[in-house]
């Protein structure tokens, strides 16, 4: 019997770990940018702070989506034993669910006042 490495279990948390990482980064940079006045630096029609936060939101969403696609590809890549098959399907769908969660959570970066 081929032994599967326990790190397979980490895939269960992969999608939402990306969401959580994005959360920490975006919330942290929002606080940092407000403290150091990035919102007062214009970058075209928007502020530097908003530009950074929008970029991070888009990148975070893309990473989460690619992660979900990667897990789906891994899942389809071969005939997995029963357990691995179920774990990977759970991991894939959890990661797909993290994609809209990322978009919804950070959608405020497009509209809300950044530092007031």
């Amino acid at each position, binding site marked *: 019997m081929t032994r599967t490495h326990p790190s397979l279990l980490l895939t269960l948390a992969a999608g939402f770990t990306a969401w959580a990482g994005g959360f920490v980064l975006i919330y942290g940079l929002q606080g940092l940018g407000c403290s150091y*006045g990035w919102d007062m630096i214009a970058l075209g029609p928007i502020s530097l702070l908003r530009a950074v936060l929008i970029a991070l939101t888009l990148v975070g969403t893309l990473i989460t989506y690619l992660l979900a696609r990667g897990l789906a590809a891994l899942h389809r890549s071969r005939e997995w034993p029963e357990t*691995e098959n179920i774990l990977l399907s759970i991991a894939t769908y*959890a990661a797909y669910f993290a994609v809209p969660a990322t978009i919804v959570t950070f959608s*405020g970066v497009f509209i809300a006042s950044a530092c007031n």
Partner: protein
Amino acid sequence: MSAETEGKAFTASGTPRLSPIELHKQLSRAWDTPPGLGRLSAVNHTVLGKRFIVAAFVFFTIGGALAMLIRAQLATSNSAFVGPDIYNQIFTMHGAIMMFLFAIPMFEGFAIYLLPKMLGARDMAFPRMTAYGFWCYVFGGAILVIALLTGVAPDSGWFMYTPLSSKPYSPGINSDVWLLGITFVEISAISAAIEIIVSVLKVRAPGMTLSRMPIMAWYLLIVAFMMLFGFPPLILASILLELERAFDIPFFDPTRGGDALLWQHLFWLFGHPEVYIIFLPAAGAISMMIPTFARHELVGYRTVIIAVIAVAFLSFGLWVHHMFTVGIPHLALTFFSAASGLVAIPTAVQIFAWIATIASGRPRLDVPMLYLGGFFVIFIIGGLTGVMVAMVPFNMQAHDTHFVVAHLHYVLVGGFVFPMLAAAYYWLPHITGRITDHKLSKPAFWLIFSGFNLTFFLMHLTGLLGMPRRVSTYPMEAKWDWLNLLSSFGGFIMTIGFALFVIDIFLQVRFGTRFRRNPWSARTLEWATPTPPPSYAFGSLPEIDDRADRIEPGQMGRLLARGDGYLGFTRNNWMETLGLDMVSARPTEMIVLPSPSFLPLWTALATGSFVLSLLFKFYWFSLVPLTATIVLWYFWTFSTGSREDCAPFDIGRGQSAPPHWQVERPPSWWAMLFAIGGDTVLLSSLLFGALFLLVVAPDWPPPTLARVSWLLLAGMVVGGIIAAGAARFALNRLLDRNGSPLAGLLGATAGHVLTIVCSVIGISELGDLRVHAQTAMLFAILAASALHAGIGVLLLIYGLQRHWAGKLSALRTMDLRIGNLWHDFTAVAIVACVIVALVLQVDLSSARVR
């Protein structure tokens, strides 16, 4: 279970088969808890699970009595029943008891009692930790209750907001009781979390892969991870606030560079996941009960797991919704508001899965289902008001009013108490071996249900009318009297219902009719044990070849009782169970569990003495019980391990497995790994706190920046690297034909000592720690580095002791590998600490515009 061995007089390995009675006697000799005072030495999960449940219910009764006092006080306007000082203690203790001393330990008790039986194991992975956790919980709870009886209970609200809980505004020991007592209890929670994780991942029946586990095991696994990552911020916050209160080292004082919001962030980073930590185990129990009464397996097993994973993560992104009114920018509020709304989706997925299960089956209404009906109604109302308060504009209107009190009680009582009442009726026949002939359960339900709604539904209205929380009285002109009077009336109806519940349980335990195994025709493994269960749970361990909620417990129970499974015999009077490969679930090791021992009790007493010493400000004396605690932990290890390499042991069914001390990754290795995971969160919270103050707190920069010499910081890093490298060298020497690890262990000790020395000198260079939060944070970071190195030294002393005791060999390297995990982590942690310490010494705050 294979039938091929049925009826043979010999097992597959050739040893004579014992009769079920003889097997029971032999296993009981090995596993039973001694009578009399020996009961205090219990380490058995069945015994300790029941004790946790009973103790939690006792605290629930105390918390409930306090709730009655609250309702008596608020029944009418201008009440003089108790004064504001006493009232503050009453509502603070009501919240603290219900959250910390009832809800979490009650779920721990259920988990400890049920988990091994559901997983087809004989006990949890670390029975003595279970016992130690139990005693810490009881002693910590006792400290809080004694404080209440003597009038010095915490009185700053269950969330202990600074500056109200700080020394200038709470000069007595009331807040210290909370900070130290609750932290003491948290030891129990953290140890339970690690134990549950390792038990679920490693200690199951062979063949029970993760995808075959009963759904409750998934719930408990995920909740245990949430506890592991959710509790450390609270523990850190409590330590920092206690340091501020005891030694005036400012972390939360805004006049000296601290920030009261740091406390709120750390508290709610724990506090909001806590709600789901309480709800999800109850949801796990619901997911076990509904399929039984619907006579249909759970619909959407995988979908439910995905939903629970989503809830677990999202619940960590909500904490600021408790802080919507503190002045955080709108943009940040949108993150937390959105996440707060999002979490309703995976929660609803679970509810729809339960409804679908009922709809797909042939449901029958019995007492547990009646209580689950109450859960559905109340929890869904609580969930809907949860979405309301997740929205910032509504939250700002309802904040700190009785609307929030109503919401949180609908969520917690609906989401935990009603499912636990259902669970009590569902699993009590398992605990007692009896079923109830009495009909009190139904009037008890209707009294609790109607009383609850009368009490708390009306609080939505008083809240919307503007009645604030945490005030001891209100003026008649507010016209809230009739609503409050009805709420209080409902509270007393609910209490009568709980009294009937207690009487009903007593009647069942004492006079219930003895019943055969599995009265509900459930299809999960815990019902395959005899009822009441013997101390060893299973006469032999099953082989699982399908989902563990598709079992015929009666048939399997009989086969297991006659020893047809794994380990259907005794050996050396050892307490044995099996460890598995996490994914494939094939046996990888035979775990020998420790026998009953008074050591957990003595260790908890020593730990309790340490806490009391701090509480009564005997700081130098506190080193005595602290040392005693450490020494007693060393005593724990004397009975473990072996002085010689062993050949793999027969585990039955023609298979063999090595003992756990001879495998690469035994349960204790995983326990250390997960403990490091929790510690990473604690340390990250500290470093986050330092950067938070640097970026956000008022009164920065300090008048004079405190500095630590770069040479000392470099010394700390070098010490950490030496320790990790030398410890690896020691292990490699041992693996290399049983070479001596002595030089490596001594070198690693020298590395850690270097870190400690540099840290201590660095702290001494800081000067007066009370001047500013920058100095305070540098102190905390250096102290944390020294503490990690100090724990490393203790692990190295342990390694040396094992070496001199002859318990190390190329095959028996477990003790060193567990230590190496810590030494590697410490090296990384020190680097992180040093980086943040360097950042703190740069004047970044002068450039701030806000």
